[in-house]
């Protein structure tokens, strides 16, 4: 499944990050990379609030759709 389908409170493992957007490089540098665990804290509007390690990151749903998790 992709990250957008994750329910709030759930913790998942990132399998792959797809997509060609330049901004994905930033997203990866922020810690959303394959092999990392991420938990979804909240969904608000077009954005998701995630917790990766000790940091909280907001990304848009469109980007989340390109992140494969389990």
């Amino acid at each position, binding site marked *: 499944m992709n990250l957008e389908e994750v329910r709030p409170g759930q913790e998942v493992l990132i399998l792959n990050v797809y997509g060609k957007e330049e901004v994905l490089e930033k997203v990866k*540098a922020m*810690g959303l990379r394959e092999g990392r665990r991420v938990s979804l804290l*909240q969904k608000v509007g*077009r954005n998701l609030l995630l917790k990766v*390690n*000790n940091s*909280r990151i907001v990304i*848009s749903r469109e*980007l989340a759709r390109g992140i494969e998790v389990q």
Partner: protein
Amino acid sequence: MKSVRVALVGNPNVGKTSLLNHLAGTNLKVGNWPGVTVEKREGRVKFQDYQIELVDLPGIYTLEPLSEEEWIAYNYITQEKPDVVVNVVETPNLQRDFLLTVELLELEIPTLLVLNMSDEAQKLGVEVNDRWLSELLGVRVLRTNGRTGKGVKAILPNVVELYTLKEKPKPLRYSKELEEVLEKLRESAQESKSELLRKLLQERQNLHYREFLKNTFGKEAHEVVKDQRYATAHGLYREVVKERPLTSKDITDSLDRVLLHPALGIALFFLVMFMLFKVSFDFSAPFMDWVEGFINGFVAPLVSMGLVSLGAGPWVERLFSEALVGGVGFVLTFLPLVGVMYFLLSVLEFSGYLPRVAFLMDRFMHRLGLHGKSLVPLLLGFGCNVPAIVATRTLETRRDKLIVISMIPFMSCPARLVVFSFFATLFFQNPAVVIFSLYMLGVFVALLTALLLRHTAFRGELYHFVMELPPYRLPTLRLLLRVSWAYVRDFLYRAGTLIFGASVFIWLLLNLPPGVKDPSESVAAQVGKAVAPLFKPLGLDDWRVATSLIPAFLAREIVLSSMGTIYSPQVEKEEKEFDLLGAMKEQAVSLGVAAKDAVLNTFKPVPTAFEVEEGEESLRQVVAKSLSPPAALAFMVFLLLYTSCLGTVAVMWREVGRSFALLFLAYSFVVGWLAGFVAYGVGKALGL
């Protein structure tokens, strides 16, 4: 004295600004990077025999730049080559922060690694073996607490030693295949790893090396390099960091549950904004009155007394006391408001609340084609356009900045309210309805302007929303005061010359030809008479209205006093004896009263700043006779939309550039005129 250029580099929100504040103290300066509206914070300190120039680079996650901020940091590091890099990392997030550290080490510039927020790490159960870290990388490692300043003292001595010893970090070792390729590209021993990588990835003649890497690793060469960086960063993390899982609740999670709640969070946001306005108006109002009294009742007479005793003629004396002290002074009366707003904005920023507003409100803002971060600068515009425009520095793209800066001046500020309440109470049965409609009209025109810009100059998709929400942190009062003072000083310093120039120019218009007694004989009146036909379609064909707009360019509310002098020039200025000692005492006492009032006001439940003072009765009668209600409506609409505010124009000029500021001024004039024209027509049709 030798100067050492030191760059503070790190991810966003790692506390670089707090460290800079501890290092630079009162020498903290804020400004803009040349040509862009990205904030530059810097400081200069003397240490031993060195002049240390500290620059706080915009926060970045990687040296692969995308946004304006990232380009600035990237260009500074790679082109201006600082003497020493201070890499500030957030200890609880080393897993993420080490990527940038690895990229910085590739540059092989003397580097100091600062583990900031080591206190937070401890609470989260994160332990770092800093000795081992230092050994692995060959860099000095320090621990600091940016909030209290603990450990900060050790930074400068280490920076100086790194500089004098030219102490370079150990070269990083990537995989064997990659290292071999890089060695083949090496032309001199001086070349850093970052230069070799650039040659590998960018130079045309090295295509075969890239092909070689692609065949070896099954990935494009730049992907190979990235993977190696990540692997190095991850390896480093695993070597030096131990995380004990802690069960204790994180305060940030608890606060977020309330502050980011989809319904409650929004209600609390509006409460926070209401408090921000209430405190900034009520706390600053007594000081604003004091500044006005101080300038007119103390500085102006003092300057004119000094000039007279020096033997200056009356014309020179008036130029100084009226144009310089009066004109510039009037813009300065807004300083307490601007300062308090900067202070409160810094509280929101440094506490970590500001990015949360962006997250919370993005779902409304993005429907307007704007980033969630745009909301706060727009709302600040209702308080004062000047700090609102400066607040757009937090926006990431130039497109967003320019759109929001073009919207802010239509947000009606208290200076406009003063004018509205004078005219609305004079001409209309329901002044509150009229004033409310004017505010709404301002918002409407702002939205229309954004729409216009998005369909012409700034086409294109709204970019993806990616940001980090830092943990909540309690900023220290010292940091907040220094940062807001730095903003105020920057405004004075950079907008000062423009404000001064415009004040003198306007005064000259009103006082030339020499010896003019009555404003109706001045150049300003000639200009007013010449442009009066332009305002005829708005029902404002009286030359006195057009003329009063000239001095009102300093600030809108001046229109009332300038109408006063133009409509009834017979009012004589009171001549009083000026007694220096007595006046000083008087000013000191009134400053004390202002401070007391400021504190009292702040704790009153209802905002006091909106209590409108009654205008002068004589002026009310003259104006009432000379204007029709539809014309008064047109006048208010015009003044709402036209950027008749020197401070705003000056800050736009400085933030975005002269041509933008002047173009926007012309645009606002045209929009104001058109809307005024419509308002006049509607007003007549309604039979007001």
